C-alpha cells in the first residue's frame, strides 16, 4: 500500500510528489498518458508571473507570489531553465492608466516586490520594438520565464531519484474508500493508498466524481499560440502583456527560455477535454491582437503553433484542500493561470501542510532526501575546451543529431535513460530539444526514431510521436509489414 497516490503527472502532481519525498513515504504518481507533463503543462505561456493580478485573499494571489519567490532555488536544484527577465503590462491609451495603477496597488498589497509604473522613454529602453502608441507600462522585475515541461519532468525525476514511483499509461477508472484506505482501479491494475491527491488537471472534476458528488466543475478553456524562430529572439527582452480592457485581456509576446518568441494566447471555452487543436479563427485573433504590441510582428518566422487547455474552475479560484466529503482525498484542482507560477508553492503546501498534516507522526522526515537532480549536459552551452573534454570521455557527444539546436546523441541517450525518461519523439524533444528548432524534426526525426528504437529495444515501427497510437511509421516498404 502506498501512503500517497497522486493522480496526474503534470507540474502540480510531480511537484507534490517531489516535496512528499522529503518524508519517508511511499508515493506513486498515476498518469494516463505515456509521459509526464502531457496535459496543460506542455502547452501554456511558460511564464512565471510576478503575481499582481489575482485578488487579495485568494489562493491564486497567495501561491503566485510565494511560488515566484521559490523559482530561483527550485530551478537551480532541478537544473531547469528559468530566467527572471521581468514583465511589462503595456497601456495603449491614457484611459488604461487607472488599470495599471490598480494592478500596482493590488500587487503591493499581495507583496509583489519592485512594481512601478514607467513612462515611454524607459519602456523603449527596455523594449525598443514595442508600438509607438504605448503611453505607460507596469514594470514587474520579478516576473520570469521557465521551461514548464522541463520543470515537471525534473520534478518527476527527482521524486523518483528519491524513491517515488511513476506509473505511466495508467488511467484511473474508479475509486472506492474502505476502512481508511483508498482502492484505485486503474488500467494497469489496482492501487491502494492512504491518501489520494487529485492533480488531474482538466479531468479533476471527473476524478473527484468517482468518490463524491463534486462541488466544482472544471471547464476546458483553450489557448492557442505561435512560436517564432530563434532568429528573431531579440524582438522582446521581457514578458510583454497588454493592459486588460473591456475588449478583453489581450495577448502576450515573450521570449522563451530556449530563445524563441511565444505569441498568444486567445481564450475560448471548448466543449470537450480533448480539443487541443488550433483554429484559423484563433490564430487570426492572435495575429490581430499582437499587432497592438508590435506592429510588424514577423509571423513569417513562425515555426509551430499549438494550443493548450486551461483547467477553468467553476469556483474561480484554485481549489487546494482536503475534501470535506471524503477524508484523505485531496483536491488540487482548477490550477489555471497563474498555476505554473504557483506550482512550487502549491507543491510544498500540499505536501507539508495537507498531506504530512493528515499523516501526522507517520510522516517522518527523510534525512536522505536529495533535492538535486543529476546535472544535464547541454553540449551547445559548453566552452570549446569543455566540448573537447566531454567528447574525449564520451564520444556519443560528438555526433550531432539535431542541426538546428545542436543536440548530440549523448544528450538524447541520457534523456531516455534518466528516471522519468523519454519514451517518444516528443518526449525526447521536450527533454533535450531535437526537433524543437526551425526544421521541426525534418532532419533529426529519422535519427531520433533510430536512437529510441535502439535504446528501448523496440522496432522503429513501434516508436511513437507522442500519444499512445501516434505511430510514425506504418510498415515496411516492399509490403514488409503485411506479410
Amino acid at each position, binding site marked *: 500500500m502506498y501512503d500517497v497516490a497522486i493522480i496526474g503527472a503534470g507540474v502540480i502532481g510531480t511537484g507534490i510528489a517531489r516535496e512528499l519525498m522529503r518524508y519517508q513515504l511511499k508515493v506513486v504518481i498515476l498518469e494516463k498518458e505515456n509521459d509526464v507533463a502531457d496535459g496543460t503543462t506542455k502547452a501554456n505561456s511558460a511564464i512565471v508571473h510576478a503575481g499582481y493580478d489575482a485578488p487579495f485573499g485568494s489562493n491564486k494571489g497567495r501561491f503566485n507570489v510565494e511560488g515566484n519567490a521559490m523559482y530561483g532555488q527550485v530551478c537551480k536544484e532541478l537544473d531547469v531553465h528559468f530566467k527572471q527577465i521581468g514583465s511589462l503590462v503595456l497601456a495603449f491609451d491614457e484611459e488604461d492608466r487607472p488599470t495599471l495603477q490598480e494592478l500596482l496597488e493590488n500587487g503591493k498589497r499581495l507583496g509583489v516586490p519592485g512594481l512601478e509604473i514607467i513612462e515611454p522613454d524607459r519602456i523603449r529602453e527596455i523594449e525598443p520594438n514595442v508600438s509607438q502608441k504605448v503611453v505607460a507600462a507596469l514594470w514587474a522585475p520579478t516576473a520570469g520565464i521557465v521551461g514548464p515541461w522541463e520543470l515537471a519532468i525534473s520534478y518527476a525525476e527527482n521524486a523518483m531519484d528519491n524513491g517515488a514511483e511513476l506509473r505511466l499509461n495508467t488511467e484511473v477508472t474508479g475509486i472506492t474508500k474502505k476502512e481508511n484506505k483508498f482502492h484505485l482501479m486503474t488500467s494497469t491494475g489496482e492501487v491502494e493508498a492512504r491518501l489520494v491527491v487529485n492533480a488531474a488537471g482538466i479531468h479533476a472534476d471527473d476524478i473527484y466524481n468517482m468518490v463524491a458528488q463534486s462541488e466544482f466543475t472544471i471547464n476546458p478553456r483553450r489557448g492557442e499560440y505561435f512560436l517564432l524562430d530563434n532568429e528573431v529572439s531579440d524582438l522582446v527582452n521581457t514578458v510583454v502583456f497588454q493592459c486588460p480592457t473591456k475588449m478583453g485581456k489581450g495577448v502576450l509576446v515573450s521570449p522563451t527560455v530556449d530563445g524563441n518568441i511565444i505569441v498568444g494566447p486567445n481564450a475560448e471555452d471548448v466543449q470537450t477535454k480533448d480539443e487541443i487543436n488550433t483554429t484559423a479563427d484563433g490564430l487570426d485573433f492572435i495575429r490581430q491582437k499582437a499587432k497592438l504590441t508590435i506592429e510588424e510582428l514577423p509571423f513569417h518566422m513562425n515555426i509551430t503553433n499549438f494550443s493548450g487547455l486551461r483547467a477553468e474552475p467553476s469556483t474561480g479560484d484554485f481549489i487546494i484542500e482536503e475534501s470535506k466529503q471524503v477524508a484523505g482525498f485531496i483536491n488540487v484542482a482548477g490550477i489555471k493561470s497563474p498555476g505554473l507560477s504557483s506550482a512550487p508553492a502549491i507543491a510544498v503546501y500540499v505536501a507539508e501542510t495537507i498531506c504530512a498534516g493528515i499523516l501526522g507522526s507517520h510522516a517522518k522526515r527523510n534525512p536522505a532526501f536529495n533535492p538535486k537532480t543529476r546535472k544535464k549536459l547541454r553540449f551547445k552551452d559548453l566552452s570549446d575546451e569543455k566540448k573537447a573534454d566531454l567528447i574525449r570521455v564520451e564520444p556519443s557527444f560528438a555526433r550531432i543529431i539535431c542541426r538546428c539546436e545542436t543536440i548530440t546523441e549523448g544528450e538524447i541517450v541520457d534523456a531516455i535513460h534518466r528516471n522519468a525518461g523519454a519514451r517518444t519523439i516528443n518526449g525526447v524533444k521536450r527533454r533535450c530539444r531535437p526537433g524543437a528548432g526551425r526544421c521541426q524534426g525534418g532532419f533529426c526525426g529519422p535519427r531520433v526514431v533510430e536512437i529510441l528504437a535502439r535504446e528501448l529495444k523496440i522496432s522503429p515501427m513501434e516508436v511513437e510521436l507522442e500519444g499512445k497510437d501516434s505511430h510514425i511509421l506504418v510498415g515496411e516498404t*516492399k509490403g514488409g509489414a503485411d506479410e
Partner: protein
Amino acid sequence: MEDRKMVCISCPIGCRLTVTESNGEYAVEGNQCKRGEAYGIKEMTDPTRVVPTTVKIRGARLRRLPVKTHIPLPKPLIFDAMKLINEVEVEAPIKVGAIVIKNILDTGVNIVATRSMERTE
C-alpha cells in the same frame, strides 16, 4: 485523324507537344529537340517509363538499395513489375549497374542497381 497535346518528359524543359496522327503516320510539333519527336510518337503507340524504386538489401548499412529499369518499361506493366521487384532481396556488397532482375516480365528490361553499397556486417 487524331490530335493529342502532351508535355514531353524527356528532359526538364517540358516542351508542350502536339502529336497528329494521319493514316498511321505521326507528326510532332512543339518539340525543341529530336528526343521530343521520338517521345511524342512513342507516347501514342507504346508509352513507356523508366521505373525507379528500391529492393531489399542484406548486409549493408541501409536496408534498401535503389534500382531502376535500365531502359523504359511499357507503362501498363509497371505494377506487375513492382510485384516482382518487391520480392527480391540482394546481398551487399553491390556495384552500381549490377543487374538485380534480368529481363523482367520478358520485356527485355533489366532492373539494375543505381548505387554501390559496401558490406558492413
